[in-house]
């Protein structure tokens, strides 16, 4: 589903050049739950952004669903992205001026669903996230855990093939964190591929394998169910 070959990302600012990713090779199969770990600044978010088609690499190959996308334009990436990828962020990134319902509805809008379809889908997913009673609230009226559930609802409302989560539990206490993790696990069990960045070894263990990054390199890959995915 996702395969990178010698992926390189270099940030250039006026005076410094930071190599955030240095020849990263990873291969993620459909249905996997991959955790990415590593010290701060090692390039986890950079990798996730590239995998999520938010950013282009500077070098190497990136195959996404059989497309070589490393040179795709923003427009092409946007198309692939909205059809296939859901995002969950550490800081939730809900739009403050929109209600819960409207926030969740957003991806469907850009996918061009009709209003009745949107209503059905949003209600279904909010039900599943158990926040139906909050549909017309604004994000700031919700607790952190509730906000993250809305963010997850938004990530999955369009049935993406893959969910990318950057420290989804980072801003939550352990109880809320557990909740989000079980949500992700159940999504994975229903067939959604998940790639998650985390600093927590415990949560990393929810995945079927853990990729350790250090200074832009993949150092180890800890594979639990080798046989299942034929790596």
């Amino acid at each position, binding site marked *: 589903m996702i395969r990178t070959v010698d992926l390189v990302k270099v940030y250039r600012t006026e005076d410094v050049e930071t190599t955030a990713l240095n020849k990263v090779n990873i291969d993620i199969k459909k249905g996997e739950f991959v955790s990415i770990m590593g010290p701060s600044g090692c390039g986890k978010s950079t990798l996730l952004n590239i995998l999520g088609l*938010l950013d282009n690499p500077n070098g190497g190959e990136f195959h996404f669903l059989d497309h070589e996308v490393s040179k795709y334009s923003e427009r092409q990436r946007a198309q692939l992205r909205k059809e296939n990828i859901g995002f969950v962020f550490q800081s939730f990134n809900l*739009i403050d001026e929109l209600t819960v319902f409207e926030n969740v509805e957003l991806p469907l*809008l850009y996918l061009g669903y009709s209003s009745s379809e949107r209503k059905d889908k949003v209600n279904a997913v909010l039900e599943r996230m158990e926040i139906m009673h909050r549909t017309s609230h604004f994000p700031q009226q919700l607790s952190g855990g509730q906000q993250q559930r809305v963010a997850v609802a938004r990530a999955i409302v369009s049935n993406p093939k893959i969910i990318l989560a950057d420290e989804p539990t980072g801003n939550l206490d352990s109880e809320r964190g557990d909740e989000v993790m079980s949500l992700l696990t159940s999504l994975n069990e229903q067939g959604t591929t998940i790639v998650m960045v985390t600093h927590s070894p415990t949560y990393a263990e929810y995945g079927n394998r853990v990729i350790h990054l250090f200074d832009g390199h993949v150092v180890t890959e800890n594979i639990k169910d080798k046989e299942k995915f034929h790596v």
Partner: protein
Amino acid sequence: MLKNYFFIALRNIFKYKIYSLINIVGLAVGITCTILILLYVTDEISFDKFHSKADRIYRVIEYIDPAERSSSLPFPTSEAMLTDFPNYIENSVRFFNFQTSTLTIEYAPENGQRLLFNEPHIFFADSTFFKVFDFKLLQGNPNEVLNKPDLVLVTKSTAQKYFGNDDPVGKRIRFEGQTELTVAGVLEDTPSNSHFKFDFIISFATLDQFGFTGNNGGFNWYWNPCWTYITLKEGVNPKTLQDQFPDFVQKYFHPAIKDLTRLELQPLTDIHLYSNLDYEIAANSDVTLVYIFGIIAVFILAIAGINFINLSTARSMKRAREVGVRKVMGALPQQLIGQFLAESVLFSLIAILLAIPFVYLFLPGLNALAAKQISFTFITSGVFWAALFSIVVLVGLVGGIYPALFLSSFQPVKVLAGKVGKLGSGAMLRKLLVVAQFAISGILIIGTIITYNQLNHLRSANLGFDKDQVLLLPIQRTPIGGQQYYQFVDRMKNSENIIQVSAGNMVMGTETQTASYIIEGKDKEIMMSTYFVEPDFGKTLGMEFIAGRDFSTEFASDTASGIGGVIINESFLKLAGWNTDNALGKRVTGTLEGEMRVIGVVKDFHYTSLRQPVAPFLFVINPNSQARQFFRSFAYIRIKGNNYKNAIANIESIFKDYVPNRPFEYSFLDEKINSQYKGEDSLGKIATVFSLMAIFVACLGLFGLSSFTAEQRTKEIGIRKVVGASVGTIVMLLSKQFLILVAVANLIAWPSAFYLMNLWLSNFQTRTSIDLLPFITAAVFTFVIAFATMSFQAIKAAQANPVKSLKYE
């Protein structure tokens, strides 16, 4: 999708109330000013276009080199043209009003109240009046109402004034105390956008009894008192007709002037904005005003639009995350651009909704300032809404496009990581735009002050005579103007509070007439400005004689027929090549007056407005006593300093003894002269109002911008305070950058304003000098007001508790 945009826009408007208020109020004020100015401009350019043949109607005008540019023609011109150019001219109509400011109308029904008024808008017109123009006849048959002598048409409101609710048709009124006229029909009131206004139209045939339409002692092709309008046949090129005028002039015009005379066709629709000839029916407007106001409208709208751009980009930090999220969700840049544009259009829509009641509120003010009668009914016009809609879209798009491009270019990876530069983004552009706003404001302030300086200059300029405390009394066709003039003068002079009395046929300082003269030693007639006056004219007006003397009753020859006297001005002296020692006694021969001798020389003075140059000029006492009576239009009465009331009461009682059946009416010479500058006056007033508006809107923007800066620098301010900075230094810190911008703006405004105002002043023969004061005033004003605006925010930020502001991060 649109619903989503709409809600988010609306919620944003409510969430950031100050920001929204600044934007909307600023835009609303800008749009209000623009609509008001557009209404003014639309009204100005609509003049005379309501006639269905407007594009084929021309006024024939007469230039007599070098001195006369006449809007009117000799009596027989109209008929001769119809005869000579039947293939070109469809119809023609003449207007005549004795060239008098008012004429008396009396209505004395058998059993009712006698009404007597001096009417300012009376014309004699040919029966073709309705064939050329579209003025509406409400009662009566257009083919009959003007085709006989002694018929008169009245407008609806005039009918109301004289006859109340009675049927006006058939009523009899008396004209100038002598001619009985029968009301033959009722006209609709003159539309306010007609270049002349009438209350009465009298059939031209009525004039036959006054002897004007006849041969006039051979001068009927010389005297030119008839405004003459022609309709060209369809498809006729006015140029081809005009090309035949030189031959026409040769064929008909008086020998004294036919080599000097040139006829031209002036399009009807050009008269209001472009025409400033001699003897205009009424003073016209000036197209420069239309341009100036148009520019001001664009300026104000630009300032309001700039606020919008500046505040939106300054606020972009707040929207960056939304942009990032939307992009992550798959939004394309153009979708975001669409969203932000829709938002700015929404803003401008709300602003317009606010602007409409503003316009309603301020329209009467504009009407008063600009002497217009624009009614709020424009609100029902489709054109208005189309224009309004265009403004909404234009402002929304122009003001929104930059912020939209700016916002939509954010990269989600960066904004979601909070990495969009804080102060940096778009800061340069914002600075430039603030500079533009204050430069425009500066130009408007400087322009306004110089306009006022010029106006004061025009009003207080030394005209070469003393215009103050001179009362003008219309006496044409009264016994005073006639046989009893000298007796009247004696009585006046003996009366208290009256210093001097004379008479003339023109209003000194505002108008002139021209006639042809041969100067001793030269052989050709020359057209020159002349006033027909009476003894003591120079004395009454406080004129300075550099040789000879004023006309006086003590010299019988001055007023006797035969060889008369003439008083010339310095320019005449130069033209003739004489000097003050040898000029007296020289011969000047007038086409009308015959031989005359120079008896005095006066210093040059401004016999017309200060827009016109001073040329050779002469005062004449008309040797023909019949004509002299006709040309005694005004008595000039100089009254003593401080007792106007008594003097006027005296004048009235004496006047009533001679003229019992005409309302007593007078005016002051200085007011008449000053009223020539009412265009500049309303320009000054309107410019003041709009300049203040422009500055207000610019300050609104500055207020918003400085509040964003203060907000963004909260942490910095906190730290500075912790390490000991005082409120004062922090206020300076925050204000400094803006004050630099205002300084740059002034540097731009000064030369631009200097250039523009020089351009404007070049319209005047007499102009104020441009000194530093307006520029310094503008600088001080913009600095003070900008500083006051910003320090409000800066002081608030500086006084905030540092502990709180440090936690804020």
